[in-house]
């Protein structure tokens, strides 16, 4: 049994702490999936590579080939790890542009782990006040634990002490892996291969 896991990160620098957090979450989730007998297929999407394409798609209406592939990967994912830096009290504009382009009906019920990074721990609740409602709108199945990593969290050692970043990553990854393993594989509807028959449109 295989499941696709897609990391979407809106980190701007290279390397970025959002990517770093996404990688740690992905590695922990993969480990828990393997423990549950599930073979993970990992894909990482760096939104910085799509920045211009996302602006173009908003104005022109169609995605570039590369952006199209990333949107399709998210819609076909069995689980998504979404990581944004916190800017001005909320997710970054780049992060929002990408999820604005996601069809909420097609995304419905996808297990999602939400995560964010910031310079200080004072922004940590932005993840609950801004990111969680965004995924509620998209009708995603967001796991209970969200992971916020402030810069100082990266210097607190490798031990999973209560409330540490390592412990929170473990807890969130366990929840995501369990949600992915419990759900039948994603079967995205292709409206072109499988159109709604006209008799149904006429109802």
């Amino acid at each position, binding site marked *: 049994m295989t499941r696709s896991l897609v990391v979407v990160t809106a980190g701007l620098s290279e390397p970025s702490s959002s990517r770093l957090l996404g990688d740690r979450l992905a590695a922990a989730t993969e480990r828990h999936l393997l423990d549950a007998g599930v073979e993970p297929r990992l894909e990482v999407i760096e939104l910085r590579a799509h920045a211009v394409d996302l602006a173009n798609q908003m104005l022109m209406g169609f995605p570039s*080939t590369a952006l199209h592939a990333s949107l399709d990967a998210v819609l076909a994912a069995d689980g998504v790890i979404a990581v944004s830096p916190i800017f001005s009290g909320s997710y970054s504009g780049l992060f929002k542009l990408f999820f604005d382009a996601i069809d909420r009906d097609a995304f419905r019920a996808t297990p999602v782990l939400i995560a964010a990074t910031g310079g200080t721990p004072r922004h940590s609740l932005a993840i609950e006040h801004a990111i969680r409602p965004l995924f509620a709108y998209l009708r995603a199945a967001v796991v209970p634990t969200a992971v916020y990593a402030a810069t100082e969290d990266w210097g607190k050692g490798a031990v999973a002490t209560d409330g540490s970043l390592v412990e929170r990553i473990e807890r969130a990854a366990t929840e995501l892996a369990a949600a992915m393993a419990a759900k039948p594989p994603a079967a995205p509807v292709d409206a072109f291969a499988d*159109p709604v028959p006209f008799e149904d449109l006429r109802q």
Partner: protein
Amino acid sequence: MQFGVFTVGDVTPDPITGHAVSEEERIRIMVAVALKAEEIGLDVFATGEHHNVPFVPSSPTTLLGYIAARTTRLHLSTATTLITTNDPVKIAEDYAMLQHLADGRVDLMMGRGNMGPVYPWFGQDLRNAIPLAVENYDLLRRLWREDVVDWEGRFRTPLTGFTSTPRPLDGVPPFVWHGSIRSPEIAEQAAFYGDGFFHNNIFWPSSHVKRMVELYRRRFEHYGHGPANKAIVGLGGHVYMRKNSQDAIREFRPYFDHAPVYGGAMSLEDYMAQTPMTIGSPQQVIDRTLGFREFAGDYQRQLFIADHAGLPLTTVLEQMDILGAEVVPVLRREFEALRPAEVPEGPPLHPRVAASQAVPV
């Protein structure tokens, strides 16, 4: 195969001079384009329908009726007729009337419009766009085909014993295309009725147009109208030509950069690479247009957008002259040579038009 031009009737200031034509001038420009189309031997003129500024053509049959009186051969069509917010009864009557005045040189293309607030302005709900397109068109077909109609639906007051007048010319309704850029439901609708399907082929990549046309063709066959390659397909196109392709790009760039419909974001070069737009020499336009059949199959109608984005009338007419003299004659010959014998040459014509076009033996 039919070739023609279509207009959206936008009043856009010329980005070079800053001059915006008046609504009166804009309407005259649309008429001039239609008359030019007949003069240079094109087959079709199609007008958009809009009920929001900066567009002027809110009353297509008034415009097309005037053009009908000043032409003898040109087919008059729409791009598109708003099947969502117009009363289907009025569409049935208006276009039957136009058929009589134009001796059958009429077909029309159903569409859903380009701006949300038009729906509430006409008492409808945008969220019903597809159900409106489905129900209204179903009624429209019946009004043209049944002399007395009893009808009840969701969106319009019921009809009992209603006869739409005038009846279609010689009892033959106008041929109908369904136009959609991105909704598979509309390709499905066109296929269900065995009507034509038109893709504007301007704003999206060919890979997407291909999926829409393939869906229509496959479902056309599924619904028993004949093999997929006999389905009736039309495509739009956007070209600007000069003998030297660099001149074409240099001249057209300010219009592309400032035209609201192109978003003002992507570069002209990127846009040309990602969509079927061709700005270049007449030969480049010929090659690219012939390439359309590679993703759409052998098709029946090719329309080019003519007057828009603030291009001055003199430039629009020059472009049409190049189209009529250097491009369309070659495309006609080449497409005809490539077309398998069983594929329809063009869309169905009204019997009167077909009779008048028949070559005397």
